């Protein structure tokens, strides 16, 4: 589950006692890092208008080498590598080399590299980081690509397509969506006296199933207090109960409203009503599903490959059950971006756009890595429908939710995650922890609005 972190967490700096014998060192390190970017020109120039059809007409110039950075360190990495190799063999005058690193490192490195003029030509970004990086001039607008390649909303699922727009300009082209899904252990369900082919899909059925499992001594749905995937589960529930995390303009935090309280209370009740072990640590919920300790787990689509690797495990996957009344599910999305370049090279800009268009049409291969293709033609193809597990989760495509495309929105989410942790681990009152978190998040959003001029 390393391959799809939706937010860019801070880099786990290997701080050792040896390097921090003095308080001044940590300080100097921080200041030094800031100093790296304070060169004469903090803002890389915008790319010039790209001629040669923005990539639609192919690329016929001299041979160019393109750098492609991403964070596909998990099982999805080899699938992307295969696509890049295929592209290279079909395009003799473009050589794309792929550089894979941890997402956290990637998000820390990219702005610095772009500022230093050493950024890659192509990159991948999670949809909730696009706005922030657009506001910080790390990535360039792609309206020319979209129009030159004749990409339009009708080619893509509307939700991830719209998510790539910031301040009226398109900054990213969707590659995939990775929604939350409902995974279940069939063996455990059978042991608990449930029909393993009929996972509960409504609130009442779900509760009845959990009660039934409890009567057989099985804690059916372990509630994790951590972002992966507790935060995603409760976010899904908020949308299901008809609420939202933020107002559309992201000026207001709405998660402390009634739907938010209902959602967190439902999730907390999994523990208080005995359907979940309490005080569990990171990933214990999905491990419990694999070990046959629990029956249900809400997790990301990337879990398909994790569970497939586990031989002898009899599992199934379904769209999220509808607990709140409105169908909804959390999703992330990988999007292609072109980092800004301080010394734009027209040939490279064109070649990069050719690559973008080509790979977006080939996203079926990518779907095998455990994702739902964003492109309609691929998602509706017979080949994709043959990938049964992915196809099941793809049915959620029209009611998936992303955070608003507002710069710095990722700064506010951790406050929500704190509230989740306090409620599930600390047993605190959901309404109180949510309103406290909303108060802190509102201040962060206000500061962001000022900073990014929103």
């Amino acid at each position, binding site marked *: 589950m390393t391959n799809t972190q939706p937010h*860019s*967490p*801070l*880099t*786990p*700096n*290997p*701080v*050792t*006692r040896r390097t*921090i*014998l*003095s*308080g*001044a*060192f*940590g*300080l*100097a*390190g*921080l*200041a*030094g*890092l*800031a*100093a790296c*970017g*304070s060169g004469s020109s*903090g*803002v890389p120039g915008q790319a010039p208008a790209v001629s040669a059809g923005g990539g639609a007409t192919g690329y016929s110039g001299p041979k160019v080498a393109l750098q492609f950075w991403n964070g596909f360190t998990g099982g999805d990495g080899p699938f992307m590598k295969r696509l890049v190799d295929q592209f290279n063999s079909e395009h003799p005058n473009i050589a794309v080399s792929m550089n894979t690193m941890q997402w956290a490192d990637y998000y*820390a490195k990219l*702005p610095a590299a772009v*500022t230093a003029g050493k950024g890659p030509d192509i990159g991948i970004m999670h949809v909730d980081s696009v706005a922030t990086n657009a506001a*910080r*001039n*790390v990535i360039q607008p792609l309206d020319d690509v979209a129009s030159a390649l004749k990409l339009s909303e009708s080619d893509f699922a509307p939700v991830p397509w719209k998510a790539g727009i910031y301040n009226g300009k398109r900054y990213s082209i969707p590659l995939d969506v990775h929604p939350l899904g409902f995974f279940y252990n069939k063996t455990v369900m059978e042991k608990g006296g449930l029909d393993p082919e009929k996972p509960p899909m409504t609130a009442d059925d779900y509760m009845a199933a959990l009660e039934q499992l409890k009567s057989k001594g099985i804690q059916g749905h372990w509630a994790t*207090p*951590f972002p992966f995937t507790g935060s995603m589960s409760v976010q899904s529930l908020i949308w299901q109960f008809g609420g939202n995390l933020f107002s559309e303009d992201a000026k207001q935090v709405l998660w402390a409203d009634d739907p938010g309280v209902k959602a967190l209370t439902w999730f907390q009740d999994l523990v208080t009503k005995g359907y979940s072990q*309490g*005080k*569990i*640590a*990171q990933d*214990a919920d999905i*491990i*419990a599903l694999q*070990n046959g300790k629990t029956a249900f787990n809400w997790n990301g689509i990337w879990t398909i490959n994790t569970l497939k690797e586990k031989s002898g495990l009899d599992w199934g996957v379904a769209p999220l059950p509808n607990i709140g009344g409105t169908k909804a599910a959390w999703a992330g999305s990988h999007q292609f971006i072109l980092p800004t370049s301080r010394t734009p090279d027209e040939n490279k800009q064109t070649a990069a756009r050719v690559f973008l268009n080509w790979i977006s049409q080939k996203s079926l291969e990518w779907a095998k890595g455990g994702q739902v293709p964003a492109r309609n033609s691929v998602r509706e193809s017979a080949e994709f429908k043959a990938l049964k597990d992915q196809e099941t989760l793809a049915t959620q495509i029209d009611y998936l939710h992303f955070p608003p495309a507002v710069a*710095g929105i990722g*700064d506010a989410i951790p406050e929500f995650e*704190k509230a989740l*942790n*306090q409620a599930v*681990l*600390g047993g*605190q009152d959901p309404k109180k922890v949510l309103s406290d978190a909303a108060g*802190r998040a509102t*201040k962060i959003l206000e*500061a962001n609005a000022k*900073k*990014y001029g929103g």
Partner: protein
Amino acid sequence: MAVTTAQPTRPSSGAPPTPGGRRSRGARSGIHGSGWTPYLFLAPFLVLFITFVAVPALLGIWISLHDWDFLLPNKPFVGAQNYTDLIDSGAPQFQPFWNGMKATGIFVLISVPFLVTLPLLLAIVLNRKFPGRTFFRAVFFAPFVLGVAVVGLMWRYLLDPSFGMVNGLLGALGLPSDTAWTTEQPWAWISLAAVTIWWTIGFNAVIYLAGLADIPAEHYEAADIDGATAWQKLRYITIPGLRPVLIFIVVTTVLASANMFGQSYLITKGGPGDSTRTAIMEIADLGLSQYRMGQASAMSYVLAVCLALIALLNFWLLREKKS
């Protein structure tokens, strides 16, 4: 003989007295080169120090007076606001910062006493002559060579409340096996302190060993003749003889514990709630993940000043009391 005496003639503290006026004589005779010689020898370090410590530290002050994001063209000057925000309960960084300072303080208070005393006891034991002594010295020092990522990840798995080996072993012994080592207080703090002690005990022990080797054996012989007990020898010879080492260890250990980041980032993820989010975690999050480098720098300076004051207090408390 309780102590090895590799260098029995070495004085207990301080370097041998240098003859006065040596430098001026050298400068006059020309044998020791020009007056610039010492500075030339210092130059390589000085260059590194200026580049990587002095300049960034001064730049940090400058940054802390601005709303600073290195990628945005606009870095408005805000004066002392980043500092006053830290004492204004209405500011967004007020609660996280002081919560972080509190967590840092708690960790210092619960970890430093053990990190100072346990390595001392260990060093006294390892200083005795017994078969396999070198082996045991290596064993206790070994965890220190591991990086924080290895230590953090390994203990996160070992301490997992549901599937960890620690609870598994406790259960096999018939002891309670449902302790939430990483997800409930006070267990989270106990786990973090214990992991840190396990990790770094060897480092402080090695420094104590070096200090013990410096205590002249004659002191112990004289004490034996006077019929001193083991406790009296520890109290009146070993500990006073270790004072310079003790000051070093207390000061560096307080600083190291106050800079704790990796353990709680990896093992408890700052939880339960935000109880183990240390000041460094907040600063790193604010500066490197939210790109509020001005505010993060201001926090860094406040933390640095606090640590400097505590270090001074340690020096003062452990100073040699002249009778």
